[in-house]
């Protein structure tokens, strides 16, 4: 899938990643978030491997399809509180209505669910966010709302961001630097 990939993201930096589908963008995000282990090479945060960090992982991933990233059988309030109670300020900034938290995932729209997934990923321990096509299925206004929030929040907390998107205008709008993921050489 991937071979010889080198990538560094500094705090406060927003790195865009573009490549055709099947090139391994999502796989790379999974590796960086610690969901999978690479066959060769390392993923390190401040020089230490991710596994050395206790508690919630400081590198959090937000997925393209929020429907697949939440438990369909529990109300969203419990999903949001995974590991820690949700911060009031975040809910307000993301326009998450309190009533949503009593509902189940099937009762909310994709945009509403994505806001909850973003709030969940922004725990106090989070230093880096991996955004894998997180607004590809949203209309332009919802997309702009979510990015306005993410840009403010990441600037405030000096979070590092990796943004995967097929939309060049979006990457140019939100990123400080754009990298192209090369095809693996065999």
């Amino acid at each position, binding site marked *: 899938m991937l071979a010889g990939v080198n990538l560094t993201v500094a705090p406060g930096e927003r790195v865009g990643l573009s490549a*055709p*589908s*099947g090139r391994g963008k999502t796989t790379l995000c999974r590796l960086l978030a610690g969901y999978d282990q690479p066959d060769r090479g390392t993923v390190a945060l401040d020089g230490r491997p991710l596994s050395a960090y206790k508690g919630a992982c400081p590198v959090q991933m937000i997925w*393209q399809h929020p429907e697949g990233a939440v438990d369909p059988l529990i109300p969203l309030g419990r999903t949001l509180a995974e590991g820690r109670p949700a911060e009031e300020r975040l809910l307000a900034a993301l*326009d998450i209505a309190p009533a949503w938290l009593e509902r189940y995932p099937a009762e909310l*729209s*994709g*945009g509403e669910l994505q806001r909850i997934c973003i709030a969940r990923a922004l725990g106090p321990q989070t230093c880096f966010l991996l955004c894998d096509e997180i607004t*590809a*299925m*949203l*209309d*332009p*206004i*919802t*997309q*702009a*709302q979510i*990015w*306005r929030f993410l840009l403010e929040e990441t600037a405030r907390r000096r979070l590092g961001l990796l943004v995967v998107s*097929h*939309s*060049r*205008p*979006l990457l*140019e*709008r*939100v990123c400080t630097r754009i990298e192209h993921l090369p095809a693996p050489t065999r």
Partner: protein
Amino acid sequence: MEVLLEIQNLSVSFTQYERGLRRRTVWGIRDLSLTIRPGEIVAAVGASGSGKSLLAHGILGLLPYNSHMAGEIRWLGEPLTPRRLKTLRGREIALVPQGVTYLDPLMKVGPQIRHGWRDAAARVRSRDALGRYGLGPETEGRYPFELSGGMARRVLLAAAVFSPPKLVIADEPTPGLDARAAARMMGHFRELAQGGAGVLFITHDLELALTVADRVAVLYGGETVEEAQAEDFAAERLRHPYTKALWRALPGNGFLPLDGTQPPPAGGWTGCRFAPRCPHCRPECKKEEVIPYRPWAGGRVRCLNPEGGEEP
């Protein structure tokens, strides 16, 4: 010019059960009118929950049992009755569905494309259909699980154009495709239109819609708020403030978010659905029972104070 599909004042409502036996009716679509002519690509654009997928399902008679449809749909000038629809669906009117899960996992690709036809001519046609989308004849012998996501999408397209149809309805066919693959699919729609078919392209992706559509209908909260020519966007000759906000929210044109959210489906409403978010809202916008959807400056608009054009 001849009209393929003519939708007039279409409404779709659902009966839901709240606690116990208490029922309520909510509107998914209210007062929607749209026409599609041969050779034309019409995009229906809206956020999730705007009613755009209901439109596809309403035309095709695929709404769930607890729904009720009102208004009129005409096909080539004659009412599109359920009985007539049965003979047209999959032949003259074809669907390119949202997900690759619409393929039957237990059936090989060839027979799925041929919709039960078995003669030699049908086999030639199904191979042609696959070939059009860069798939070899060996694809016919495969099961859906042996296809990649992109191949499965092309198989769905091949199945849709097999008959060949006069109207293709594509319901969010592009999520999950990269830019190049999405552009290729737009090229296929253009080819179908050049061959004389009408295409209804339903999507949340305004940017993509504008690369291919001739006309764009914008949906908001279950209503059509504007119908514009595709070139009206780049020229900012837009009539409804929501359409304008959509255009200006694109990353390439300002990336300006509009505050607030689309209202959810409701049991009924008075006045303009967009009023709470509208920069030009006046008191009468909230009082008028139903805001009429009227011709305006070469398109249509549902707004009491639209921009551009003179009072007709």
